[in-house]
């Protein structure tokens, strides 16, 4: 059986990196006696995958993982048993059974929503509007040119799909996330600091929450983090 679980990652768990986090979940599943299915071979590993890794320090309100079980188990049972074994900071929001031939969630994610808390010492509304209203935003990042690693410039403005200032310090943003196009919001914010002359803010680590993960159907964003999707 294939299961999809939507969960929240918050609190001290934000400081647990993605690999450590996966091992934490795997162990919780074993303690909960979920009949996980494993790959064959000398070094069997569980059939378990995560939609998209969450960077260190970020929280997530609608993270998604999938796994396969050896034998049938009800969704409620998975929720009940697993919830008991998870440490504080991981909370299961929903679990559902998905069809066998469904492509993995990892392949379907194309965008993510974020809520970003900017430094509270000023009103950011105008600066953000000025920055994001421009037709072009170039970001420097490490990439490969003909196999060699070097700094490259990437146009990211088209990857920003929606944005809104919730209050003078809180930016909501939906932007590209996935294996093909990916915009890391912390890099975008660093560019914002540079463009608005707030260079000393570059060392500031904003609080970032990934609120939802999205796919696309017929050009429209669909929210996979909501159980109804």
């Amino acid at each position: 059986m294939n299961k999809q679980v939507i969960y929240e990652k918050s609190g001290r768990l934000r400081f647990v990196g993605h690999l450590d986090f996966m091992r934490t979940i795997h162990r919780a599943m074993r303690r909960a006696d979920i009949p996980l299915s494993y790959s064959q071979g000398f070094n069997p590993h569980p059939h378990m995958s995560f939609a998209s890794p969450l960077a260190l320090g970020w929280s997530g309100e609608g993270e998604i993982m999938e796994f396969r079980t050896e034998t049938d188990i009800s969704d409620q049972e998975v929720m009940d048993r697993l919830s008991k074994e998870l440490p504080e900071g991981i909370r299961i929001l929903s679990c559902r059974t998905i069809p066998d031939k469904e492509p993995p969630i990892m392949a379907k994610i194309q965008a993510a929503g974020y809520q970003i808390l900017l430094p509270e010492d000023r009103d950011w509304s105008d600066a953000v509007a000025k920055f994001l209203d421009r037709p072009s935003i170039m970001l420097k990042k490490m990439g490969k040119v003909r196999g060699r690693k070097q700094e490259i410039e990437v146009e990211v403005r088209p990857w920003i799909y929606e944005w809104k200032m919730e209050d003078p310090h809180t930016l909501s943003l939906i932007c590209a996330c996935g294996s093909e196009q990916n915009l890391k919001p912390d890099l975008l914010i660093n560019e914002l600091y540079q463009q608005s002359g707030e260079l000393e803010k570059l060392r500031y680590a904003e609080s970032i929450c990934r609120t939802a993960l999205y796919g696309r159907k017929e050009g429209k964003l669909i929210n996979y983090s909501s159980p109804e999707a």
Partner: protein
Amino acid sequence: MKVTLSDQLLLSVQKPARYIGGEVNSVQKDLKDIHTRFCFCFPDVYDVGMCHLGLQIIYHDLNSYKGVYCERSFAPWPDMEALMRKQQIPLYSLETFTPLKEFDFIGFTLQYEMSYTNILNMLDLAGIPLYSKDRTEDDPLVIAGGPNAYNPEPLADFMDLYYMGEGEVEYEHLFALYKEHREKGGKKRDFLRIAATGPGIYVPSFYEVEYEDHPAAGCDHTPRIRQVRPVFPDVPASVRKVLVRNMDDIEYPTHPIIPYLQIVHDRAVMEIFRGCIRGCRFCNAGMIYRPVRMRSKENILDWVDKVLAATGYDELSLTSLASNDYPGLYELLKTIHERYPHVNVSLPSLRVDAFSLALMEELGEGKKSGLTFAAEAGTQRLRDVINKGITEEEILDGVKLAFQGGWDRVKLYFMLGLPRETEEDVFGISKLASDIVHEWYQLPKEERSRDLTVTVSTSFFVPKPFTPFQWCAQADYDTYMKTQQFLDSKIRNKKVQYRCHDAFLSTLEGLLARGDRRTGDLIYAAWKNGCRFDSWSDMFDEAAWKKSIEETGTELAYYNYRERPEDEVFPWDHIDIGVTKKFLYREFERSKQGIVSPNCREQCLGCGIRLINDTGVCYEKSEEIR
């Protein structure tokens, strides 16, 4: 007070998961039910400390006592230390983020000499005066235990008290006394008088060390110890270790804390027995953990069930000082394997023979990691001197079988600078390695592994307290290095790998291992000069240590290079581990004559421990092992 760490701080250090606590199976208690708060301090970084079984044992045990709360703290990595100092964040416990200064007790475990500067650094970060004499009622009582505590003297000035022996035995009693004393309105510092008369407790400040009037023979200014004696009549002249009588009567940490962070040994651990029957003459663990005491198979299986259920680990390590010496090892493994086909079982310290190879084959283990032989010395003559009961024939037979079984990597461990070592013994190391390669070539191609790598690893021998070699002179730095170069020049076989390393750390280790109260000044100076994490090669500051040796006038001729006479009063003589000095000296004499001693199951050599304990290997013949 509760320490809070900002997101900013946590995001600017490496591996922030070291500092957040809250792991699965860590213990939360309601502070209003607590009369004694204890913080277990491991003087190394979190990832190292959390691999340590002793920590899990003590944590589990102490937290099972009503009214007692045991928490944890580790040495912060230098990046974190710098930020803590800058932002004036005191060292805190991972369970409740309470500053260490607010605890009743803080307890250090002494596992290796090169962690001593970290202890001073942790005290300093906690805002606790480093010297016991400078502490007041506002400070916790600082206690230390663990294998290195049996020579308590180098850190004596920094510790209020020591716990001598196995942790499971006396703490409950100690805390009960503490509670009673405090309820009567007694002062913390006065508690030391009460504690000092109880079993296993050593309060260094109640003992006076007297030195001779003239420097020791061959030394410039360092006199020998004349005697150590208690300053109060009711304080015992010698402190005897406490030990567990029956391993099946004590609890096991069936709910070990599971770190978030990937640690070096990320697996469930089951201790199958304590102690070692072998009596290698260089080995400190083989003496201080005497006698060998087994856990029954039923108990082990029961605990394995519990540990795996409580952790979800898919790897299990059955630990002991020498796995093969567990009677019924095969049945035990078979049962575990049948119950948990998906759990990877490993056996550290397994001797290689036909039996253990079959075992490893069954476990589907070993091939990845290669075979390990702790031969320790290059010739039979020298192996007899150190009483390492492994013969060349056993090794060669073992590798032959292994090559036929498809193993293609062999690791050999040796020590350089052993007492009575000659050039021939060192050459013997390279010869043994070549003989192993030869053994591989001898086998027809279709019967052996496809390729072969033999890795030779050497460490420098360091004489340790409570071993027959405690009287020995330690080789000096130049001798160590010359011996190593000699070996390196002799290893010419292309399939044999060998890497040299520096010997100064071994010199220091030897200095601290056999140090005395005067050595405390050196540790303090080294800490002042910026030393910490000395066991991490990239952190080790050789120049700072050399400067500290200079500043304190510490004489290596006295501590390292001097062979002690039979009547030497050792700094640790007033600690009684149950194994007598007489026995150790007898073994030392036998080593000089190259006489091998039988192991405890073959014949009792009367080491002394059976006189203070009535269980274990010493009574095995009359006591049925289940």
